[in-house]
């Protein structure tokens, strides 16, 4: 690998992502524009021509949103069991082992405490590379504990979501994570501790139908796929084509389900400003 192509420490690292090829040039999967990897790294992996936001890893979001050196991970030691002894072509523990090896993560969410422009926050971010950021018991438990850290410390909560669906191999236990996380959010709601939900491509199914949709503020990156059911399922159900732009961030904003669409490069600034507006001690927006 040539020197100039090595990942810069400040920019967003590319890690092992199917979305992001290892090469000097890459093609935008939305508009087909040929882009250099180096320019993409500088632009937070956003296509300069069509604004397509390439999928980035959980670590990249931590780097993007959390102040340097302030992130302290919690519950990184939680891993999935096999409560149903799920029978499939591959055993569930084997799938987990493969995902752990591929991503270097123990499950599909990283959580902890950190500062956002100096503000303490409980933070969690999902990683699509880990079995499509599907929600099983570990994701549910880590999100639940992140909410509890907010409750215990009165820190605002920020969750960056993405998810392809439920962790089917955990059956009903996977479903109940929607209940567990939402239960704790009802306490956060009552205590008036701010919760900002950030939606990235794609956020669907159980995650979308629980905590991702329960932020005091819900913001999304541009052109993300957001919705309850996947587009393929809907097309099948209605037996027809879906309208262009259906279930995009822009579609949700249009229908009243998003507070704002925010460019990746502006996420941190936007989150920290919003938090200041909601926090009790009424900090001036410009005192930083």
């Amino acid at each position, binding site marked *: 690998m040539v020197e100039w192509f090595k990942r810069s420490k400040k920019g967003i690292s590319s890690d092992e992502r199917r979305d992001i090829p290892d090469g000097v040039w890459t093609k935008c999967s939305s508009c087909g524009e040929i882009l250099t990897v180096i320019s993409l790294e500088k632009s937070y992996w956003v296509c300069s021509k069509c604004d397509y936001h390439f999928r980035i890893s959980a670590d990249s979001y931590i780097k993007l949103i959390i102040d340097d050196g302030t992130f302290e991970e919690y519950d990184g030691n939680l891993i999935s069991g096999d409560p149903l002894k799920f029978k499939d072509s591959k055993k569930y523990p084997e799938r987990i082992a493969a995902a752990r090896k591929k991503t270097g993560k123990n499950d599909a969410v990283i959580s902890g405490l950190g500062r956002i422009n100096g503000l303490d926050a409980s933070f969690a971010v999902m990683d699509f590379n880990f079995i499509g950021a599907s929600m099983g018991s570990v994701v549910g438990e880590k999100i639940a504990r992140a909410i509890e850290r907010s409750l215990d410390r009165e820190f605002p909560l920020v969750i960056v979501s993405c998810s392809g669906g439920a962790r*089917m191999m955990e059956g009903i236990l996977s479903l109940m994570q929607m209940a*567990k996380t939402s239960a704790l959010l009802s306490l956060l709601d009552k205590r008036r501790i701010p919760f900002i939900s950030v939606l990235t491509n794609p956020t669907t199914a159980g995650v979308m139908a629980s905590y991702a949709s329960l932020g005091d503020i819900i913001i999304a990156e541009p052109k993300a796929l957001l919705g309850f059911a996947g587009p393929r399922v809907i097309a099948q159900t209605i037996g027809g084509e879906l309208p262009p732009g259906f279930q995009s961030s822009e579609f949700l904003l249009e229908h009243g389900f998003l507070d704002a669409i925010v460019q990746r490069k502006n996420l941190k600034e936007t989150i920290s400003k919003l938090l200041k507006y909601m926090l009790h001690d009424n900090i001036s927006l410009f005192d930083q």
Partner: protein
Amino acid sequence: MDDKYYLEFEKPIVELDNKIKEIRDLAGSSGADLEEEIKNLEKKRNKLQGDVYSRLNRWQRVQLARHPLRPYSLDLVSLIFDDFIELHGDRYFSEDRALVGGFAMLNNQAVMFVGQQKGRNVKQRQYRNFGMSHPEGYRKALRLFCLAEKFGRPIIIFIDTPGAYCGIGAEERGQAEAIARNIREMFAIEVPIVIVIIGEGASGGALGIGIGDIVLMLENSWYSVISPEGCAAILWKSVDDPKQLEANRIQAAESLKPTSSDLLDLGIIDGIIPEPLGGAHRDYSATAKNIKNKLVEVLPNLMGKNSQELLADRLRKYRSMGEFLEI
């Protein structure tokens, strides 16, 4: 009840039933004494039924939960409650016919009933949208929960849905938001909530009205994050051979563990309400009576708790759900 419809594994039982009926008719018309023969056949039939039903696999249980003759919410409401007054609409957009609700009397106790409703024939099925709610159904349910809370009435919920509706309008009007909001708000409703899964409990569509202090399942109902056929389609993609398709669904059902006894073992539900032998569709009254007895049994204890206790217990119940390891 139209009993022309039967599932594959019900066939030998139905055949014996028909034979018994034939002999009865023959005895009636000819005056011959066939009592002995009838008794023997009935004995044989009951043994066969016992055998068949004790050996059902999970996929067959799912079939029972979807039996076209299975009692639906409104069938049971009229047998369990008195003076049900249906209340319509979400006050925002429309009336969702896949979900019904209203005040009702359970013996001398005024309650709020909410249930998902399927249709029996082609016309009714369309009218009820196959028991699949749009966001308006979930919003109507929440409106009724709040109404119940305001006037201190416990809430009884029947779940029977193949899923929340997946369509353009449902997405436009925030299916995910409606379900998410319901789940969260149900943890703040300060009156007792008892859930009974009476047929199908499919995923978020079920959970969207599914948070309760006591969660019960009818013996032959199912409840999971996805249907066995949905799970099979994801795991093994499309299969053309019908035998292989069936085998995949059987395996998916076994893997998902969606039956009432599975969920009791997993600690997700609080109890199983028995069905008459052969399934709820064999005897609506007996099914309704079993549900009613259970409701009458569990409600007083819940109603004895103050709202703080009630909410704390409800939270604790769901907080502990999930299995993981710490390394």
